[in-house]
């Protein structure tokens, strides 16, 4: 093992929560290192900022609903973070995108009002802040005529099904198919997004599509409108087609999610933070109730990272950071921290009704009111590692990630330098 590396804070996990914590720490002047086993949840999520979609009825204004929701769910991260912290973090994210590496690409919306964006199956999903490239699909107010565009080349989007379900929801929608030639049959949205980045290819596509459109139709396409220059691709298509164009998120890998990753990664680098991918934390050194350092194992070499503060943003069951083993015992795998929300031994972990809430759904790392891990006073917990939420059903994943990542950064910055003997 090489020598120990010293930072003001070490963040574990490179999903939205971990990257946001890293960026905001670096922006606050801390020397920060983000360690991650791999890329995080950004690549799987739709790329929208969902704050509160269902509580459990559909929420029209997340800003207005947050306080009541938090009061009804006292163990939810929102109850600990508070509505103001959520609003601040969402605002910061919008600015971060605008200042980011994807020229012109920005998010629109806010906490006042959830937009309703069509999903790839044609349901309408509530979201607070969304990429500009999706905004024209908002069905929360009259949408007019919509044409969904599919292509046989992309098995991950079915325009006809999407249109039929939208029609049931009262949207005047139809679908068309456009030929796209590819050199391999199993193309995904990422592969096609690279073709959309090519101006000549895009122009030819737009010309073929234009022939199939009727006057006054806005156009919905699967979320594949460029990975390198999405604003340029989208505005060029709107210009060429002479009408609003919007993206619809579909199966992973998520192109809009990868844009979020790129924006946050770039912000981290610009602010002087470090990101180490392929660095799974395999052990932690502790001194009493404090974590002193963590060790990673990666292909090149093993390394040890010491810091006065650690942010645990490694995710929950979905990432493997929290595990339920075959003997039905749960573990937090980075620090071995106690968990919260685990059903008692004699209680069901899961139930047979698919759409019922699963008893294991709200398991997370036990935290105090400041989101410090129980039993490790200098570990702050953020994102999907937190207990008390069912983000994929609530439509709250990004709100929790942004607010808890920001909160962790503020906690460190407020107390930075305090612990003696830890700085290099």
């Amino acid at each position: 093992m090489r020598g120990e590396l010293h930072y003001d804070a070490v963040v574990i996990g490179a999903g939205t929560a971990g990257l946001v914590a890293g960026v905001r720490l670096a922006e606050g002047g801390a020397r920060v290192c983000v360690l991650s086993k791999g890329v995080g949840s950004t690549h799987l999520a739709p790329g929208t900022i969902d704050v509160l979609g269902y509580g459990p009825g559909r929420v029209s204004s997340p800003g207005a609903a947050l306080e009541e929701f938090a009061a009804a769910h006292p163990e939810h991260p929102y109850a600990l973070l508070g509505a103001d912290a959520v609003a601040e973090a969402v605002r910061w994210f919008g600015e971060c995108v605008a200042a980011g590496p994807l020229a012109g690409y920005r998010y629109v919306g806010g906490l006042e009002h959830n937009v309703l964006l069509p999903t790839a199956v044609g349901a309408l999903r509530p979201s607070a802040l969304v990429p500009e490239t999706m905004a024209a699909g908002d069905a929360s107010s009259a949408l007019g005529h919509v044409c969904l565009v599919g292509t046989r080349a992309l098995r991950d989007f079915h325009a006809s099904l999407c249109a039929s379900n939208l029609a049931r929801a009262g949207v005047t929608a139809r679908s068309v198919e456009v030929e796209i030639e590819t050199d391999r049959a199993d193309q995904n949205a990422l592969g096609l997004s690279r073709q959309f980045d090519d101006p000549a290819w895009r122009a030819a596509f737009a010309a073929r599509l234009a022939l199939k459109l009727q006057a006054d139709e806005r156009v919905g396409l699967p979320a594949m409108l460029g990975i390198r220059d999405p604003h340029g691709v989208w505005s060029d298509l709107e210009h060429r087609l002479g009408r609003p164009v919007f993206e619809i998120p579909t199966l992973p890998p998520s192109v809009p999610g990868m844009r979020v990753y790129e924006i946050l990664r770039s912000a981290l680098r610009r602010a002087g933070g470090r990101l180490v991918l392929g660095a799974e934390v395999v052990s932690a050194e502790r001194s009493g109730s404090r974590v002193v350092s963590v060790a990673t194992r990666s292909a090149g070499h093993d390394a040890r990272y010491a810091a006065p503060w650690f942010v645990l943003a490694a995710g929950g069951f979905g990432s493997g950071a929290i595990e339920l083993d075959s003997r039905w015992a749960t573990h937090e795998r980075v620090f071995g921290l106690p968990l919260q929300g685990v059903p008692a031994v004699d209680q069901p972990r899961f139930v047979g009704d698919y759409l019922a809430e699963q008893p294991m759904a709200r398991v997370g790392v036990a935290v105090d009111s400041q989101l410090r891990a129980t039993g490790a006073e200098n570990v702050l917990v953020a994102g999907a590692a937190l207990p008390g939420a069912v983000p994929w059903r609530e439509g709250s994943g990004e709100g929790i990630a942004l607010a808890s990542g920001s909160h962790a950064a503020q906690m460190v910055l407020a107390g930075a330098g305090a612990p003696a003997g830890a700085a290099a």
Partner: protein
Amino acid sequence: MATLSTEVLVIGGGATGAGVAWDAALRGFDVVLVDRADLAEGTSGRFHGLLHSGGRYAVKDPRAAEECIAENRALKTISPDSIEDIGGFFVTTPFDDPAYADVFAKGCRDTGVDCEEVDPAQALREEPLLNPAISRAFRVPDANIDVWKTVWAMARGIQQRGGRVLPYHEVVAVHRSGDQVTGARVRGAATGEEIDIEARVTVNASGAWAGAVADMAGIEGVRVLPGRGIMIAMNHRLVNTCVNRCQMPTDGDIIVPIRTVCVIGTTDVNTDDPDDHTVLQTEVDAMLDDGEKLVPGFRQARALRVWTGVRPLFEDSKAADTDSRDVTRAHALLDHAERDGVQGFVTITGGKLTTFRLMAEETMNAVSKHLGDERPCTTKTEPLPGSEEGATYRLGERLGRKEADLAGEQLICECEMVPRRKLEQAIERRATTNLDDIRRLLRLAMGPCQGGFCIYRATGILHGLDGLTAEQADESLLHFLRERWKGVWPILYGDQLRQARLDEWIFHGVLDVEHLPAAHAQAEAPAETVAR
């Protein structure tokens, strides 16, 4: 009411019933095959996939062993397309009585089951994950069989010869005129429409449900005790061959590699209800412990799905009136003319998947007598549709085809390598809106992600091809998710829980299927499925 008339009506579309109908069609009889659900959706489709060599029964039930080895050879000849001829081992682990190995070897010799003792070191070279402490190893000609492929091949063959196959047609009455059974009334699940089927001979091949069907014919005492067993599919082929513990048959002592997974089985618990699919946590735990005995580290592998099947264990309350030999045999053929004085009705039950062809042959021999037209059986030599070339299935076939042509065919299910054209053909041929039917037919969504990626794709394709309404497509999708969850939630741990969470993000976080309008319609209306 619609009416059909036929020579032979077969009730029950499992391997046995389909085998009887196939045998009848080959003998040139007019035949109708009905099932209350999909073909091979009951017991036949709910086993581990083992084509027995007979080794398992060599000591306990020599006659069954003899039948198994004969049928093993016959099925490899007539249905190679659905069989992967991987062979098998019986191994003595530290948990087994070491004295059994010699008894086993003698049993195999006596019953004609091919069995060769191999050096345990050689067995471990071939099966590197196997318990290194095995002390004896015997090679046998076990294989795996994709029973859905076999049954649907027979269904195609029946139809090609003018027979009719009606899945999702439940028998609601068995018609009787005096001492003669004259057919049955069936109700189509999709439309509720009833059909009267007039038949010269009716065959009750409904397995664990045979008692209930016999009751409908007014015949008493056909008692079938359903024996429930669980099986768990693991996400890899942890073994390359069918591995059995060399001991008297017990729970959790077989691991069968089949296609991309391996299946451990099974348990045996008596139940009153053949539709009882309860999975107990204690059974799952015991099964995983049994897995550890054969493959140390078994618990670290991903469990994909658990299911239960019910064996039909026949017990004749009129045993004294029949040949006692039939009572002890694994399968039971009841000629109700002899047994009850009722003409035109035959029950075949019990038995095992491996011997379905033999059961069908014996059944049709009896039926031929009833028809007064004894024609010879040819199922032992006539290949099933799709098996004419005689080559057994080889793992990697689908991958090989894909790699040869990356630009050609889109894969819809990457886990099981199901190409788009195959899916479209299956949807058209089956005229089904039930994605679970398609799953059995193509193995769609049977791999590690359990449909996380392919089910949205398949729903979209189904909607486009079949001209479904959005309501029907949504219901197909949600029906599939609910059915899938039944087999998934009892074994969610380790990396499969990670997978389940990813799937939840896809279906809820990305697609929001919970808020499709159809999500409110909880009615489990069976989808329309008529083979054509």
